[in-house]
């Protein structure tokens, strides 16, 4: 039997096992629904005695990345470290959401979530965000600095003009206004194609070819399927919010330039006076390290704690290093503020 035929037979065995395993469970850590905002569910993990940290997730993917696998769950790790994570989990926008802009997300969702957690804990919470969610968290913290005690940014892009930012390069010449006029909400499938198109050999070739190697390993196959589910289970994007983010951040680099304007309101992220914890991955192809590290241009050094981890974008959430080093460091930092 040739090696290739052997590989194919193992891959078929993997496919049968994968089919029997689907659908795989994700987001298994128990939570309490703290509040429902206009567009999101605020999920509270922990006992209520820990340090309250709101994590604003990105609008682009699903928040269960933070609880994808029981053995590498960000929320579980944080709870074990004495933190009470509140995850702002965006619901799928309906067709009526195409006029909803980012400012509404800040005011009616993040702002309301902060009020809810403040009421529950009797003190202002810490605010954080994941990827694009970090940008939203930063904007809201800049708008209402007295309402939060600190800011945590995980893989959050600040400078959209860095040399390695392929996504920004692809976005540079797109007429987003016309795109949103034509499509209303922006279909997730199109965005997923773009994301996969950034690393097609790895994501569309090697990834599936490697399936044969884990055909007999149930745990590895289950993790593969969990990631497979998360990667392509993306919500459509509310048209106006998508347009504002693409134009203000990707095309105008508004966060760094200080020109970011939402619905006529100028956002000044450098006005946020509280401490900032920023973590990024050194080989991130979606948010290049230098794009995230540019937070140093907005925050005074004595108020900024930066941590870089080896690996890619997702390693920050499901990587062993992140769970061994990053989250314990974050918990210590929050505790010592």
């Amino acid at each position, binding site marked *: 039997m*040739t090696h290739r035929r052997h590989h194919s037979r193992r891959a078929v065995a993997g496919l049968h096992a994968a089919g029997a395993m689907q659908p795989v469970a994700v987001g298994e850590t128990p939570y309490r629904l703290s509040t429902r905002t206009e567009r999101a569910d605020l999920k509270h993990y922990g006992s209520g005695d820990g340090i309250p940290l709101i994590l604003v997730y990105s609008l682009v993917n699903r928040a269960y990345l933070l609880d994808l696998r029981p053995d590498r769950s960000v929320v579980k790790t944080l709870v074990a470290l004495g933190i009470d994570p509140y995850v702002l989990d965006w619901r799928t926008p309906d067709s*009526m959401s195409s006029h909803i802009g980012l400012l509404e997300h800040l005011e009616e969702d993040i702002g309301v979530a902060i009020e809810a957690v403040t009421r529950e804990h009797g003190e202002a919470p810490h605010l954080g965000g994941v990827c694009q969610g970090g940008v939203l968290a930063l904007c809201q913290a800049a708008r209402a600095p007295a309402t939060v005690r600190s800011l945590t940014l995980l893989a959050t892009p600040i400078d959209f003009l860095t040399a390695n930012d392929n996504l920004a390069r692809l976005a540079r010449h797109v007429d987003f206004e016309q795109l949103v006029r034509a499509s209303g909400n922006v279909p997730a499938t199109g965005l997923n194609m773009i994301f996969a198109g950034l690393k097609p050999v790895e994501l*569309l*070739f090697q990834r599936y070819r490697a399936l044969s190697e884990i055909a007999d390993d149930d745990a590895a196959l289950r993790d593969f399927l969990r990631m497979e589910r998360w990667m392509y289970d993306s919500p459509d994007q509310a048209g106006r919010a998508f347009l504002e983010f693409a134009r203000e951040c990707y095309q105008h680099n508004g966060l760094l330039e200080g020109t970011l304007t939402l619905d006529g309101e100028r956002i000044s992220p450098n006005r946020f006076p509280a401490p900032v914890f920023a973590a990024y991955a050194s080989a991130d192809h979606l948010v290049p390290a230098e794009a995230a590290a540019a937070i140093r241009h907005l925050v005074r050094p004595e108020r900024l704690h930066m941590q870089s981890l080896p690996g890619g974008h997702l390693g920050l959430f499901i990587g062993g290093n992140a769970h061994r080093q990053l989250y314990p460091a974050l918990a210590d930092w929050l505790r010592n503020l």
Partner: protein
Amino acid sequence: MTADTEERRREDPSAPWEVLWRTLAESANGLTPWAALAAALGDRDQEGAPATADEAVHRLRSAAEAWHRDWRKAMPSVEELVEIARRMLTLRHLGTPWLAAVATSPDSPWPRLGPLQAQQAQLEEFTAAADEYRRALLSCGDHLAELLERCIADLASALREAHDPQTPPTDEELLALWTEIASRRHDEALKDETFGRKLAQLTNAWSRLRLATQALLDPALESMGLPSRRQLMDTQAHLDRLKRQHREAVRRLEARISRMEEVLGEPDRGSPDQ
């Protein structure tokens, strides 16, 4: 599933993997040409392993050329698209049968005259948008084909360095070399502004074509008494305006209350019997 594939599936229990593998690889065809490689590697069993390194490269090149040919062949012609547009106009006639046939020759030399100028203009815009979209698709396909050819040339030269041309590379060698070369070349392409510009042109042309299609389809639906996208968007915009006005009114009221509180001092929060 084609008859050939079905036949193979019966003969070879590993065929379902081959089918799925190709489907997954081809699902990226809109942006990448890597399906060509999947096809080339997938055929190795069927055709027998290549006898030499040169033959391996030749097979890859043939697959890449076939991909490019298929890409160009799959382009809808402007005439086909305009025919679809004409059918939309025909649908509109069903709703308003008293209308005379609208100008259905967008390339006609006639100026826009008479009561159907708007319809003629819509058809002209649709034709121009379809033409732009087709050109953008072709341009992207050509660019990707050039990229693929550069990858194959790199592979050929890497194989020449590592192998006697008459010695066949193993599957593992070929795959490892190809993935390294393709990843590197693709990353270089992404860093080249031309690639981004071409993809943006395609996206923009798609948006324009979609808007032009909507402009034809909306009146057709409305003429049949059916809801159109335009009407739904108008309703959404109206609701959005109301919501914004409401929010602004609340903000003004809150500001007024806080000004009044400042003037009057903090209101007594005690219980009524205090």
